[in-house]
């Protein structure tokens, strides 16, 4: 009999499910020690916050677009006609206890979720962790980003305020700009001209059922695959493509991860309580004849918004078909960006004739071409991102939006190559200095140590041989 608390229960469970072997293996699973391996977890915990807060919000939200008259606590909208959807969000914000707090936490968690995914993606990219055998996880990760984008937009749209309506109108224009199939696409996703009576109910079921389910399933695969494949290692002593050096899941890594979880929850709760986000009562209910400057999407669509602002008004006529200007920045550009993300590992593998399994990461300066391509790409998106807020910059600085736009139009061509060349030179210099100070050592004998059952907190190494099988 185990003297540990819960020992009886554990034995009861083990007799029925035979978990002991698996749990022992799992608790000894080795995670490498580096802060950058926890960035993806920030996104994971944000997603958990989104599910929890979203469940609360769904209890009060009504996706109907039926017209109702508001008589709630916010007096400046008293007697105003609005959609039932907007009314339910107003009720949630002003009359449900903690409703506004939970709504703001949900929105902040969404912004942080996608930002954390991007930071995680940048870490993977700049350390070349996407290489064989981890291409599948790269593909799943990019797909997760895509679905996170989509769900962010659905959530932004269903509040029924003026900004939501403006966003829907832009989405309508973007879908409509797709040659040939545009009208069918708008009918499929939006139910026709926005805001159709089916638009919000459709978005709502996408937002709370379909997309979260897809994200959850992909997330399970994402984590399952990284569990099976083990993490990568940063270059260092005794780290090879066949070994992994780090600390065990229990107790060391679990404690770190749980601590991070608390930090993410605390930060989101703090933002939700102290910093106002999306004040829909100021924007007012959606009214087709009203509009407002300073109408931005949430930040993750800022680059598409900026591309639309910078792109010149060029309509392309191809025979009987018209390709309107919106198509290029808002459909073609995102399609190319995601296509580039999807194929990047395979292109690199093809160009470099690299068929090896990689477990040791490359540091950014060790792969100057990758790093400079990534930085140029990042600067390009950053310029577009700034352009998405050019009117806010003009108002805040008192400048002219025409001048700002002109400067950004120049920068979008000039800045990315300059940044890429600059970064390449810096990387090349760092690599030269490194080789000068570290002459190549003779290859040392790698002693592969089988993992032990000792669950102490000391550094351990695990054998993980890709060429054979990876047993858990």
């Amino acid at each position, binding site marked *: 009999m185990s003297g540990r608390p819960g020992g009886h229960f554990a034995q009861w469970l083990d007799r029925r499910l035979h978990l002991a072997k698996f749990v022992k293996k799992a608790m000894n699973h080795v995670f490498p020690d580096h802060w950058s391996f*926890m960035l993806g977890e920030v996104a994971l915990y944000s997603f958990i916050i989104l599910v929890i807060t979203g469940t609360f919000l769904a209890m009060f939200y009504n996706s109907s677009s039926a017209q109702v008259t508001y008589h709630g606590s916010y007096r400046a909208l008293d007697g105003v006609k609005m959609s039932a959807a907007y009314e339910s969000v107003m009720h949630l914000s002003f009359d449900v206890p903690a409703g506004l707090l939970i709504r703001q936490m949900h929105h902040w968690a969404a912004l942080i979720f996608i930002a954390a995914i991007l930071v995680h993606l940048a870490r993977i990219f700049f350390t070349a962790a996407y290489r064989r055998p981890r291409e599948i996880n790269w593909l799943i990760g990019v797909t997760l980003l895509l679905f996170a984008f989509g769900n962010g937009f659905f959530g932004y749209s269903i509040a029924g305020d003026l900004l939501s309506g403006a966003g829907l109108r832009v989405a309508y224009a973007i879908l409509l700009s797709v040659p040939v199939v545009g009208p069918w696409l708008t009918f499929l996703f939006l139910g026709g001209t926005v805001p159709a009576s089916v638009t919000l109910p459709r978005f709502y079921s996408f937002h709370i059922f379909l997309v979260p389910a897809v994200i959850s399933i992909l997330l399970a695969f994402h984590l399952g695959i990284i569990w099976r494949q083990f993490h990568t290692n940063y270059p260092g002593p005794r780290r090879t493509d066949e070994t992994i050096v780090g600390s065990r899941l229990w107790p060391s890594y679990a404690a770190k991860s749980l601590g991070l979880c608390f930090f993410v929850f605390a930060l989101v709760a703090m933002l939700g309580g102290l*910093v*106002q986000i999306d004040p829909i009562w100021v924007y007012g209910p959606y009214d087709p*004849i009203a509009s407002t400057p300073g109408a931005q999407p949430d930040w993750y669509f800022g680059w598409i918004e900026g591309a639309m602002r910078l792109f010149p008004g060029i309509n392309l006529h191809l025979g009987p078909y018209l390709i309107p200007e919106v198509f290029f920045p808002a459909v073609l550009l995102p399609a190319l960006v995601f296509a580039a993300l999807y194929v990047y590992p395979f292109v690199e593998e093809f160009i470099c004739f690299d068929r090896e399994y990689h477990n040791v990461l490359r540091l950014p300066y060790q792969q100057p071409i990758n790093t400079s391509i990534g930085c140029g790409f990042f600067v390009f998106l950053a310029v577009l991102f700034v352009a998405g807020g050019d009117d806010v910059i003009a108002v805040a600085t008192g400048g*002219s*939006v*025409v001048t700002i736009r002109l400067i950004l139009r120049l920068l979008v061509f000039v800045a990315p190559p300059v940044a890429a060349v600059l970064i390449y030179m810096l990387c090349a210099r760092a690599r030269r200095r490194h080789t000068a100070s570290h002459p190549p050592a003779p290859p040392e004998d790698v002693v592969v140590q089988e993992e032990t059952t000792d669950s102490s907190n000391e550094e351990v190494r695990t054998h993980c041989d890709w060429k054979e099988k990876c047993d858990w």
Partner: protein
Amino acid sequence: MPRFVLVEERLKSRHFDQEITVRRVCGYLSFKLSLHATSVRSILRVLLLVPFASGFGFGHDAEAGPPPNGQAIFLRNCAKCHGEKGEGISAVVTIAGPNLQAEHDTGSAMTAMETGPSHMPSFVYVLSVPEMRAAADYVVNQLAVISLTGGDPSEGGTLFRVYCATCHQTSARGGALAFTGINAPALTGKSAAIIAGAVRSGPGPMPAFPPSILTDKQLNSIVDYVEVIQQPPSPGGSPLNWYGPVAEGFAAWVSVFALVVITGWIERGGKG
């Protein structure tokens, strides 16, 4: 006729009374400079004029004789920019004054004459206090034809989002107008009188909204709503200066960088 000529004649006709000579000259200089550069004016006002202004109270300046004629003073000093009926001048030039027909407060009219808000010069060294009061009384009693009562803020909100928010933003914090490079100003800190006057006269590039478009009641509703939205409730915490999703995205990225720093802190075992 340029404005400063009027002042010059005034100064000559007073024979440079001993008691007020210094102040008149300084005032004349500041007034003339004010026509050229706002910055020069403000620097001079601080460096040169404030000591004089504080040394000589207005009370000494009370002159005997008939009460000043408010209409004459208004026509000589104010009508050039504000129009003869106080209807305002709407033009894309620097000398353009807002409509004064909703000004029902003598005190705020006198304050404007003393302090010279925005592009307007200060009249402290040009008009005596009784003269200012006479001009203000004339504005309030004879020119203020727009009544500012009986508005409904929630109706005004709907109208504001349709007529005003298109340029001034739903939060009334101003907006940049594409293709023109002009920024619609923020409406914060603007009095009800200024807002009502601006709606009616349409200063600068702003269109005018005469009673045929917005009735007096609708105008008052809009003015009431603007007073709400100048200080809108922010039950959710800091409104981030009402910059909207741009500021929210910025805050989200600051938070994510904070979390990145925290992962490093956790990895070091909570040290350093």
